């Protein structure tokens, strides 16, 4: 979840106990189920992330967890291991610059392009808890598009974050991050200690679980796809496959936005990088 810390320690013991064989077993499990590469020697990360699951399952060590997975192949425990190992950090209007470019250039161009059908479709791939999709929804409302047929699909491998995205309910800490207060007062209502998005913002969005490594044939076509801060976890063949898949979901000339540390260069030479403001977008042929 956003804001989680990984500075927790248990005073040694458990991580050190994990056998090399079980470390490899967990690496493989994670890779098979998500494509995420777990580097060697990340015992501490495994420990911190999986400790709540150990407690919940009344297990003493990560070795016990491996034994359980091997013996039962329990799909729920399996899934929870993978979900615990995903990094779901996100925030409203993350990196600011791309949203500025969307607001000033890309969205006005799309509005012009679709002024007859008044239909726009977007995909927030690896949406985590939904802040990216809702930031876009707010931008579109600010542009006066409330009566357009707008569809923003948010997907993530992690079922728990997808449920949270659907709930559209955020803590004070989460709305404090990146969200201008003018939008907070305009588009949220207070629910106890939390803040919930108004129906008008939710109306454009839909959230589903989806593994980016599976077929995208049934998705799209989209005008614009966000796929930020997830390719970094994958190996080169997986990155290539996902970029090619996304290319197939875009309208001709549609744009892809990656995370600030990610690129299509040397991975997919059909996307054309375009600098707009201080951000780079990748345009499909």
């Amino acid at each position, binding site marked *: 979840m956003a804001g989680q810390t990984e500075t927790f320690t248990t005073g040694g013991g458990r991580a050190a106990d994990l056998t090399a064989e079980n470390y490899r077993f967990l690496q493989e499990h994670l890779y098979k189920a998500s494509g995420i590469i777990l580097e060697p020697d990340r015992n501490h990360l495994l420990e911190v992330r999986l400790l709540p699951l150990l407690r919940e399952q009344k297990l003493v060590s990560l070795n016990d967890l491996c034994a359980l997975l091997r013996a039962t192949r329990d799909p729920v425990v399996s899934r929870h291991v993978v979900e615990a190992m995903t990094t779901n950090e996100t925030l409203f209007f993350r990196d600011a610059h791309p949203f500025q470019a969307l607001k000033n250039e890309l969205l006005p161009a799309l509005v012009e392009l679709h002024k007859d059908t008044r239909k726009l479709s977007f995909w927030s791939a690896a949406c985590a808890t939904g802040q990216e999709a809702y930031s876009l929804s707010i931008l579109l409302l600010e542009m006066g598009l409330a009566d357009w047929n707008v569809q923003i699909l948010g997907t993530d491998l992690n079922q728990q974050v997808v449920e949270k995205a659907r709930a559209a309910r955020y803590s004070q800490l989460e709305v*404090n991050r*990146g969200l201008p*207060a003018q939008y907070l*007062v305009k588009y949220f209502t207070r629910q106890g200690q939390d803040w919930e998005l108004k129906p008008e913002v939710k109306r454009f969005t839909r959230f589903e679980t989806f593994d980016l490594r599976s077929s995208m044939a049934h998705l799209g076509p989209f005008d614009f796809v966000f796929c930020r801060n997830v390719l970094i976890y994958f190996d080169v063949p997986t990155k290539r496959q996902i970029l090619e898949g996304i290319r197939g979901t875009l309208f001709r000339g549609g744009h892809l936005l990656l995370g600030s540390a990610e690129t299509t260069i040397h991975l997919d030479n059909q996307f054309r990088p375009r600098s707009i403001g201080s951000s780079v977008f990748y345009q499909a042929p």
Partner: protein
Amino acid sequence: MAKALVVDDSKTIRNVLERTLREMGYEVRQAEDGRRALEVLESEAGEFTLALVDWNMPVMNGLEFIQAVRSDRRWAGLPLMMVTTETQIEQMRTALEAGANDYVMKPFTDDIIRDKLKLLEIWR
């Protein structure tokens, strides 16, 4: 160089904010209430590029400070960000209508301040 004014009656909060702002490359001045803050603005007129302002302070509170700043042509364009324990929507709306550009609820983290300021710089 960008120069920021931090207005809060708690020295601890002022120092925390000052450290974050310095890391971002700001030169920082501090004031412990709205009246003092106006004096600092007066004495270094036109030079500030940002003010972070608490709400509840003795002598002159943050809302009164913002109203005073916004009614003075010299500081009409000064970006103001409220940093406060007040978390009701109505209070937030009041501060924004008085002329605050953004609003951070306490407790905050360095990241929150950094992300908000980045947005404020870009979107203004």
